[in-house]
């Protein structure tokens, strides 16, 4: 952290003072407390970062929006009336109205739930599945690596649209009468199943690069078990690219969810999501750019907060930055 730039959006002017204060503060509490573990250190680090607080606040707001949308918008997101079709933003509809005369503001708010839940769960699923496979493949090497890598290759070869259409139409065809939660679950599962190979390869490459490092060799020499080496040494050191990739993936999964809905196999009305709004609005971008702009702006903000949080957590967790 050598750049004290104050022009930054992400880290506010407070950033550098807290960091320079960190070593000084680090000494005192340790005198009367037990040495903390990795997580304790990380938490102490995190508390001092405005980056962390800003992103957490934003994420809490988005989560509230997802859980209790009625706190933010009074209107009914799916009540359409053609007489106000494509009305411009105004006092009664802050973001204007879409083609069906539905309140764009209410829809953006209500869209948070489906978008965030689907994207975050899919990212978590992908990271867990791909990460585990990657660690095992990278650490074990040999035939295990070969087998897992080749399985990943097979899945990687599936065109996304094909896999999604098959999985979703099989379980979520028209008239299957699935509940909203079931449909969301299916979308999450298909996104996970079709996206894990990249994460797996990313994790595997990190593990390959790290596993011959001196501290791992040393740990092994000291008789540490495989589980301990992986969890205590390998994981924290390999997590960085994964976290970075994962937080950005939130954004592209929101878009992928829109593609599925667009194809008629994903979420169905009256469920609203940002992705659905963007793809619905694309034909009217020259007349009512707000139909694309507002959901995209929310999407970017949400993704930005996840990326910022990921960044903060990564820096806190990364032992090399201490």
């Amino acid at each position: 952290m050598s750049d004290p730039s104050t022009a930054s959006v992400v880290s506010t002017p407070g950033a550098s003072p807290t960091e320079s204060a960190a070593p000084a503060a680090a000494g005192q509490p340790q005198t009367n407390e037990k040495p903390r573990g990795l997580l304790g250190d990380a938490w102490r680090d995190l508390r001092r970062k405005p980056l962390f607080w800003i992103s957490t606040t934003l994420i809490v707001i988005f989560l509230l929006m997802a859980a209790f949308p009625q706190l933010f918008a009074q209107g009914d997101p799916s009540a359409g009336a053609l007489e106000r079709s494509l009305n411009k933003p105004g006092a009664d509809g802050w973001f204007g109205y879409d083609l069906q005369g539905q309140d764009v503001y209410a829809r953006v708010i209500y869209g948070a739930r489906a978008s965030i839940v689907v994207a975050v769960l899919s990212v978590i699923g992908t990271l867990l599945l791909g990460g585990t496979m990657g660690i095992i493949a990278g650490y074990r090497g040999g035939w295990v690596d070969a087998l897992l890598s080749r399985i990943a290759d097979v899945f990687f070869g599936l065109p996304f649209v094909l896999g999604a259409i098959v999985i979703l139409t099989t379980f979520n065809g028209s008239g299957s009468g699935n509940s909203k939660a079931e449909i969301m679950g299916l979308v999450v599962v298909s996104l996970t199943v079709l996206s894990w190979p990249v994460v797996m390869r990313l994790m595997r490459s990190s593990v390959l690069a790290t596993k011959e490092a001196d501290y791992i060799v040393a740990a092994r020499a000291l008789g540490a078990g495989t589980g301990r080496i992986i969890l205590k040494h390998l994981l924290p050191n390999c997590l960085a690219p994964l976290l970075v990739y994962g937080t950005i993936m939130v954004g592209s999964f929101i878009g992928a969810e829109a593609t599925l809905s667009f194809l008629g196999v994903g979420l169905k009305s009256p469920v609203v999501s940002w992705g659905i709004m963007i793809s619905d609005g694309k034909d009217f971008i020259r007349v009512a750019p707000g139909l694309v702009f507002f959901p995209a702006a929310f999407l970017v903000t949400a993704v930005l907060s996840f990326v910022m949080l990921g960044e903060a957590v990564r820096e806190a967790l990364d032992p090399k930055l201490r």
Partner: protein
Amino acid sequence: MRVSKRATSAIALSAAAALVATGCSSGDGDGDAAASKDGAITVHGVQPENPLVPSNTTETGGGKVVDWLWTGLVEYPNDGGAPRNALAESIDTKDSKVFTIKIKKGTKFHDGTEVKSKNFVDAWNWAAYSPNGAQNGSFFADIQGFDQTYTSDPDGPDGPQKAPAPKADKLSGLKVVDEQTFEVTLAAPTAVFPTKLGYSAFMPLPDVFFTQKPEEFGKKPIGNGPVKFVSWEDNVVIKLTRFDDYNLRDKMKIKDVDVKLYQDETAAYADLLANNLDFMEVVPTSALAGDKWKADLGDRGLSTVTPSTALISFPIYDKRFQNPKLRRAISLAINRQDISDKIFFGTRKPADSWANPLTPGAKPGNCTACKFDVATAKTLLAEAGGFTGEMVFYYNADSSHKGWMDAVAQQVKTNLGINARAEGVPTFAVFRQAVNAHTMKGPYRAAWQQDYPDVENWVNPLYVTGGSSNDGLYSNPEVDALAKQASSAPSLEASHEAFSKAVEKVDQDVPSIPIYFYGQQSGHSEKIKKLELNNVGEVDITSVEL
């Protein structure tokens, strides 16, 4: 019939009134004859789904090219009027059962051979022979002997049994009299038969067709129309050029026509605006929004109405939709004017009749269920005992139907208090499969475009028991009887009169609800000085002047 899967590219006839009213024929003066003579244009197209064999082409991409490459016995004038003889010298009949058809002498196929009566008879026999698997095979069902050449699979195409081989490979109702004359005997009198002869299924095929595989022929088709085939590069371009030996009315004024095959309408539209493309039949939805296309194209834009109708059909096989009062209530609860104005920016007209009013024989304004009358709708719904549960309106999500279907569902919800919503089915194939199998669980979108310009085509296939597109299984013996009487009427006038009675019965039952009549917005480049659209809304390339 050719119905494109996308509403935005559905094409159909354009009638005289519409042409005049909307100034569809573009350009005031004549073009520069010298510039036209060796001129070339590039028009928008899509990759045909099948090799170009007329009796095996049912979609718009290939249909357009087939229409240019071939000239049939009759042609449908650009102004939408009654069909007139093209290749036919005369079509005579005394009883509407036996037709004597004389063709003009001295016209040629593009390979130089003369078009003779046997080219028609052979082509029709080929298409009507079921093992050849022609998509338009059933168009020959009127002709005597069809049941001998066209056999059905006893347990459907998916069953283990195979269809028995047909007893005959030629239609007994077709007879070559001499080189220019042949005789057609129908199984029953059909006044509308001569009208059908302009449809692509009835085009002649050159002798060389019968010596090679149909798909080989279809990759390098040989027709008898004003342009001939040059080359076809898949997904890129189909090149056509003037057929210099053509001697019928509509000779080409320009020389070369390139059909550029696009995947995306927005790309074609961008090319049109940048003058890289000379003609585009249907501008994309994104340009219709807010009337942007008018500003973009100025006097290069054309607007016309086409006799195709968008409908919502009821699955009458589903108990919940068997009460005509409920069906009428739903129809009355839809504000068609609002949908036309807001969803389609005025480019589609609200439907108010059962057959499209541009079709010869159709009566305008005869759909009493097409009004917007919420009070009556509520009363009827109450009388029908209400509707419990969710009413889902289905559409195919691979083309742009979401907007208007959502609006319909919303209006039913708002005006009748029914828990309604619209849901997309991923692809047209899956959608049609459910429709064909009669497993639809709610009202679904449909569209109808006539195969030939006559009101008969709007009643028999759609509302008669067992009709080829009566997918909702609507059945009313009175309608059947009236339609049968109309079909075998001695003259077209009598036939039209009888059909209008059948339609009155249909109007009482509301088996489907017409929503809007299609419109078409086209554009051309600065290069083109004059052009007309033909009866199906395609550019009439023989009218183009530069």
